[in-house]
């Protein structure tokens, strides 16, 4: 089965092509094309995953591009991480395909939506089976385009347009880091192949500085894609896209690609302490930074978006603390519960036609299915014991503690508290209390929207049990099997960490309960010291404005300056040339008196001059 793994990405590509060419004629039927082909991918992925449990890594390659003596190859590889990612991506993608059939129903560009989904899924699946950096980069960019197209799906909305543009450019900034890192690494190791790069790093063929440099450059790519500080601002804006897209791309798959990249190149990062520390610091900072913004946002999807950024920071923190398993594990569980949360949020939006949580409330009774599912997701992300998020988060905290930087550990703990708090703030505001605005025709979503949510809900609960301190760490052992560079499968941390995590998350929930349900604490207690803090948080620390004032303004300024040069200097040069030519022409035309004699005289004089020169020099020019 594994030798046919290359087919997995091709199904969605086929879907993309079919829908692109015949979408107009297929109309509503295009959904089935997309769903069926993604299902095929899913089935293949499951088969591959199960086969990978028992068999060793499979990889193959062929020459893609020849440059003199250099042969760049393309191919695919099914190792543990890839197989797991294949499964996650194709599963979420399949569910989102199904969900969208209901959510996007009636949109006039329905087939286009499915085509884009197909393109994105293709790129994402291609990304996770790439055996080399170049191929990774190729799909990395394609994923970006898929995301760009889907964010800008409502192309007629100015916000969507701006968000799409922002997403593309911000991630591209990161991509350039990856690009440079990749090329530098290539010239150091003479190969793009992961295996050869690791071998070279292992053999000490690459200098320490170079490892750190390339690792950090590649990490910049991951920062861009995974919305880490300081390139995080595009991700919340990306919520302008349709909600299923947010679930697929901006929660479960693409943004996790950054984490995946770091995980896939983990042996490289592991070779540099500096790089690891950088990742950990950025991750921890992003986690708490984004969580704090998430505390005050009022748009349901934006809260989830900041939560995503924060959780991705968690994963980075785990990887940076050498907790390879913890990072990947959290990546998996997060994919499930965050996708669930987004789909549920989509369901809510579908019902009430607003995204502002201040206008919601009391939906628990009206949305009998969405409510509990959302609660499951909220509990999972908050790290309540028993659900998947608890185990993975615990793993990360352990890794952070073992990583030897207590500050990072405490930051993570605070972020966990905030996560629990803002998630339950969201839950209480949306589902409990009284409706704060008039809501007509609130109804539960159709089946093809709820079934995917139910499945994800189940996974959000049970997915954690594949790797727990209680029932064995199957996933972790499997992931690091045969690859000592990745660290231990499971690290037994002190028990108090688990207790602390639980206490922190429960505390967060309790605070939220007091503040938003019982209202026994005034909502401005925390920010009671003044509105300043609240304003800062609401404006996301003014990062966007900061960029606008510095980077964008600088670029524009430079552009105008260059245009000044273009207009005055270069055009001046042109004018000068033109002036000289014209001057010559004028002089020439003055000599055109129309008198044959003058012409003759001039011609003769010149001839005589030439003859004299020749006579003096002795003939042919030497």
């Amino acid at each position, binding site marked *: 089965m594994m030798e046919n793994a290359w087919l997995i990405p091709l199904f969605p590509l086929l879907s993309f092509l079919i829908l692109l060419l015949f979408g107009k004629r297929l109309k509503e039927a295009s959904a089935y094309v997309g769903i069926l082909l993604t299902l095929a991918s899913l089935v293949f992925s499951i088969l591959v995953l199960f086969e990978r449990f028992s068999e060793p890594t499979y990889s193959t390659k062929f020459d893609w591009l020849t*440059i003199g003596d250099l042969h760049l190859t393309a191919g695919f590889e099914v190792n543990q991480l890839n197989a797991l990612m294949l499964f996650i991506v194709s599963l979420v993608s399949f569910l989102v395909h199904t969900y969208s059939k209901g959510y996007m129903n009636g949109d006039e560009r329905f087939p286009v939506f499915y085509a884009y989904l197909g393109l994105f899924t293709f790129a994402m699946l291609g990304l996770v089976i790439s055996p080399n950096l170049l191929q990774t980069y190729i799909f990395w960019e394609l994923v970006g385009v898929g995301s760009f197209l889907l964010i800008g799906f409502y*192309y*007629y909305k100015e916000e969507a*347009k701006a968000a*799409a543009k922002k997403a593309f450019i911000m991630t591209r900034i990161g991509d350039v880091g990856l690009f*440079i890192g990749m090329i530098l690494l290539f010239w150091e190791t003479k190969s793009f192949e992961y295996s050869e790069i690791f071998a070279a790093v292992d053999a000490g063929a690459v200098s320490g500085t170079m490892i750190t440099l390339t690792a950090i450059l590649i990490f910049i790519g991951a920062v861009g894609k995974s919305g880490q500080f300081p390139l995080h601002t595009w991700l919340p804006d990306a919520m302008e896209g349709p909600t299923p897209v947010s679930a697929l791309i901006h929660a479960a798959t693409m943004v996790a690609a950054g984490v995946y990249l770091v995980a896939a190149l983990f042996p490289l990062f592991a070779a540099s302490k500096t790089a690891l520390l950088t990742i950990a610091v950025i991750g921890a900072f992003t986690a708490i930074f984004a969580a704090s913004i998430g505390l005050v946002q009022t748009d349901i999807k934006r809260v989830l978006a900041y939560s995503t950024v924060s959780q991705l920071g968690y994963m980075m923190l785990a990887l940076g603390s050498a907790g390879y398993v913890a990072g990947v594990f959290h990546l998996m569980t997060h994919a499930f519960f965050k996708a669930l949360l987004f789909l549920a949020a989509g369901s809510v939006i579908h019902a009430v036609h607003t995204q502002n949580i201040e206008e919601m409330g009391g939906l628990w009774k009206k949305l009998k299915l969405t409510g509990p599912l959302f609660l499951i997701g909220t509990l999972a992300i908050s790290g309540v014991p028993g659900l998947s998020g608890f185990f993975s988060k615990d793993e990360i905290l352990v890794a952070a503690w073992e990583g030897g930087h207590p500050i990072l550990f405490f930051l993570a703990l605070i972020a966990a508290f905030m996560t629990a708090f803002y998630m339950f703030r969201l839950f209480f505001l949306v589902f409990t209390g009284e409706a704060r605005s008039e809501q007509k025709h609130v109804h539960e979503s159709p089946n093809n929207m709820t079934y995917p949510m139910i499945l994800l809900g189940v996974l959000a609960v049970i997915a954690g049990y594949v790797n727990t301190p209680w029932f064995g760490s199957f996933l972790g052992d499997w992931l690091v099997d045969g690859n000592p560079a990745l660290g231990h499968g499971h690290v037994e941390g002190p028990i108090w960490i688990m207790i602390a995590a639980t206490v922190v998350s429960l505390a967060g929930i309790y605070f939220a309960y007091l503040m938003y349900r019982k209202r026994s604490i005034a909502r401005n207690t925390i920010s009671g010291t003044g509105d300043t803090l609240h304003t800062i948080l609401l404006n996301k620390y003014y990062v966007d404005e900061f960029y606008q004032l510095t980077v964008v303004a600088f*670029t524009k300024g430079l552009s105008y300056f260059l245009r000044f040069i273009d207009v005055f200097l270069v055009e001046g040069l042109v004018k000068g*040339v033109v002036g000289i030519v014209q001057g010559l022409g004028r002089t020439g035309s003055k000599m055109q008196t129309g008198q044959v004699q003058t012409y003759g005289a001039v011609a003769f004089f010149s001839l005589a001059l030439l003859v004299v020169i020749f006579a003096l020099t002795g003939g042919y020019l030497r």
Partner: protein
Amino acid sequence: MNLQSTLSILVFSPLLGIIVLAFLPKQSEKLIKVVGFLATIPALLIALAAYLHFQWGKDLADFAVSKAWIQFRGMGGVPEPFFSVNYELALSGFQLVLVVLTAVVATLSALAAAKFVKKEWKGYFMLFLLLEIGMLGVFTAENLILFFIFFEITLIPTFFLIGKWGYFEKEKAAYSFLIYNGLGSAVLLIVIMILFAKTGTTNIEMLAQIMADPSAPLSGDLKLGLLISLLIAFGVKLPIFPLHSWMLKVHVQAPPSVVMIHSGILLKIGAYGLIRFGMGIFPEQFKTLSILIAILGVINLLYGAFLAFIQTDFKMVLAYSSISHMGIVLIGLAAMNEAGVQGAIFQVISHGLISALLFFLVGVLYERTDTSLIGNLGGIAKGMPIAAGFLLAGAMASLGLPGMSGFVSEFMAFLGLFKELPWIAAVGTIGIIMTAAYLLRAVLGMTYGKSHREFTGVLDLKGVELIPVGVLMLLIVVIGVFPSVLSSPLQTTLETIMLGIGG
């Protein structure tokens, strides 16, 4: 099988069209268009056949032809008794891909011309076919003087095509085209003549051999001077900052079908010349200048990108984008290694296809909406989704999206330069970001967002118009996904160049 006459037939096949057109009455619009289009087909077929010939593993040297043409007695101090200029055409892998590109773009441009040209079709197509002869000749000539003759043949028809069938300021654009290129080719002529006088031959390969010989009658300084002259001559064509301003005017004022040719192929003559003559004949001196060329390349790349960022006219954006993309060619050349040079060549081909596509689309847009100002357009994705889709796809190709040709070239050029001059290359990568920024700003500004005015009567691409965009897009994607279709013919050329460099 004797293939010697193939190239001559290839180059001069459009002549048949010119002759037929000469006998057609001026008014029979349809017939003229059909003949004009059909006249480009033989060259296309022969070019494709030559490509297949190569892919079937046969030798391209079969095509080489050499006939004695002009000979005269040598004068003072030259070893050879005779100065000879031969009629020499040949086809290396590099030339082959350029010839195919030329034939394809020319055919598509003829198709576009049938759409965009509104008057005096007869004159247009005759000049156009003459231009095609020139372009094909430039890429197949194996002799500098023959090259120069064909080079001049491309100038004159272009001048008239711009000056007569262009937009409002067409005369101005045509004159600045002529003056700049005239000066450039004058410099080129001087270089050729000095080479000729010093060595007695203008055969490119023989010149390369003579230059490689340390006992050659040229001093290193003279060679350096000649190379700098070549850099100026082809720099005008490419164009290299600050010799670019003529090209902006041409891109804005010329009719779309001419811009397709101009941006797609004529600019590439500059790159071709630099690679073939600059690097092929003066490899050592090129190495001396490589840092300068790299810096020029980065300047081109960034300068074009930053200026494209604030343009209000989409044509101007594309024009500056061409400057920016030609910077990548320079970057690749400056690397002086296989990856870089191959990247430069890829960029030549890739940009030829992409800019032909984009300018065709701009032409369509302009025809439908009477404007190409980004501010006036907006939201056209609603009225013309297919055109908008292709526009977006073209922009993606242009900004170097993997899976399309632009990425492969950009990647290889940077791959090459990072090996040699990593710091300059690192500065250059800012260009990658800027390219994305300005292209998205322009394309999204036109296709996305709210429409500023109602383009209700605006029709989407349809019928014949789909052929050029479809074919170009297909080629772009094929090269992007299977770059070996392009890289395999180039390997021999690369080996030769690398041998010259000694790397």
